[in-house]
């Protein structure tokens, strides 16, 4: 590390930007400056050329993704043009917006990662996330690094190679232990099962009210819905959504959305009916007629039953299989010893 006057930085290729963050890389006189801007402030990190030990680039396989992107953009362009010619300009504009968004995301997709290793440690260079710009930037940095680091004398190199520290490319004698995922083995909260059992009960009650309209259930249903929502939201808040994935997550969030909507309307219905009851007998009769609309009630009951059965199946089957799987400690590659 040497003290120098204020450097004149030159921008290196590559940039990673989002709404609230922008990462860039700059080349100084004797160091590479990584700048992370959060729009209203900037954080800096310096990698001195004399200290850089290695630069690593890993490219993701693109496969047929590029071809798919171009085909999708081409088909969208043709579709937009044909919609405009057939006087469906509104749909054309909407499809154009969607296609434009897709093209923008496809063009900004990351396809590589780059790291730098110094004597202090390793750091990722997030601005080098596209292969073309990453190669250019690494070539520039590499050239400067070789200038800053004089080649090692032959006798010193041979001494280093003979000493116990392993060669840089020699395989590690012992692979590092795989990190244990503590959360992976955590079972889902039993509240989810209880909530879906409650939803099953609510569905049955809803179906029964379709055939025997009874005023006793006017307040029971919204209360039941809100109990169900509370039983789903409580474990979500306490443990997060990390340990419910795949089918379980879909069941939980679909149930939350559907039951939340039904609960809101149910509460508004019950309160308005309660208010009208005191005012007018004719309005009361109208409400009774609507409530006796069997197809609507049957439909809602079936929806609730489907959600309940889906949730129960998702949670019971997944928990059984996870119990079988998680007999030992979980690692990144699955249970240890499997």
């Amino acid at each position, binding site marked *: 590390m040497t003290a120098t006057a204020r450097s004149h930085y030159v921008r290196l290729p590559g940039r990673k930007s989002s709404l609230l963050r922008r990462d860039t890389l700059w080349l100084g006189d004797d160091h590479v400056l990584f700048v992370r801007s959060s729009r209203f402030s900037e954080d800096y990190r310096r990698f001195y050329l004399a200290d850089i030990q290695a630069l690593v680039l890993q490219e993701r*396989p693109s496969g047929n993704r590029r071809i798919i992107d171009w085909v999708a953009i081409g088909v969208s362009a043709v579709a937009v043009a044909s919609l405009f010619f057939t006087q469906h300009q509104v749909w054309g504009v909407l499809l154009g917006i969607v296609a434009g968004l897709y093209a923008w995301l496809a063009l900004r997709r990351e396809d590589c990662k780059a790291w730098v290793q110094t004597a202090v440690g*390793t750091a990722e260079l997030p601005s080098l996330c596209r292969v073309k710009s990453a190669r250019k930037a690494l070539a520039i940095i590499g050239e400067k690094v070789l200038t800053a680091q004089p080649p090692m004398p032959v006798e010193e190199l041979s001494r280093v190679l003979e000493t116990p520290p*392993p060669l840089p*490319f020699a395989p590690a004698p012992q*692979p590092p232990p795989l990190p244990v995922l503590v959360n992976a083995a955590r079972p889902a909260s039993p509240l989810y099962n209880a909530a879906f059992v409650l939803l099953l009960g609510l569905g049955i009650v809803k179906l029964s009210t379709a055939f025997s309209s009874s005023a006793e259930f006017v307040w029971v249903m919204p209360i039941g819905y809100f109990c169900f929502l509370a039983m789903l939201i409580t474990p979500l808040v306490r443990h997060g959504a990390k340990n419910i994935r795949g089918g379980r997550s879909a069941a939980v969030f679909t149930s939350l959305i559907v039951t939340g909507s039904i609960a809101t309307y149910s509460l508004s219905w019950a309160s308005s009916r309660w208010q009208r009851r005191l005012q007018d007998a004719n309005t009361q009769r109208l409400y009774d007629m609507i409530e006796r609309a069997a197809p609507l009630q049957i439909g809602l009951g079936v929806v609730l039953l489907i959600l309940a059965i889906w949730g129960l199946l998702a949670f019971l089957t997944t928990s059984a299989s996870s119990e079988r799987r998680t007999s030992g400690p979980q690692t990144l590659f699955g249970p240890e010893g499997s």
Partner: protein
Amino acid sequence: MRLESPLTYCHVCLANIAYAPDGAIVSCRCGVRAQAFVYPAIFRLGTSSAGEAVQAEGEAVCFAHEDKRAVAACDSCGRFVCGLCRIEWGSRILCPTCINAAEKRTDLLTQSRPLYDAMALAIVLGSLVIFTLSLVTAPIAIYLAIRALRAPRSLAPRTMVRAWIALSIAVLELGGCGWLLVYALMLGAKR
């Protein structure tokens, strides 16, 4: 003396990657193509020392570590430093305290910097949406813009266009507010 984790792993499938010593591209089993460029610094042995313990009574000791023998004196404050505290700063030897003090005076140790010009511009653009807020936001934006022009700039080259634009808009907003106020007063006086 070798590549450290996570460089040795494929970032997609986490499999171990054996890089080619000559910088050639190697493929992982998942299709990721990896390449490592290695420089002479990787062979360099570390020069830092943990500091030697005091051997005999009466020996000079480190200012920060009483049980460590002093190996040098700080060129700035003169304190004795051990091998651990000794920092080579160009041709000078400094202690950690002087390095901390220097942090505020040099760009070479700056870790972060606020962007007052971006703040000022965001505030004036926001106030254009809700014009009634201009009376409050315009002075704030002017203060931030002036501060941006006076404060140390971003380390990376950055023009002051944002600060000037923010300053202009804020001044115009204040002028507009003043004109509206005068107009309202004159209208009231006529009636």
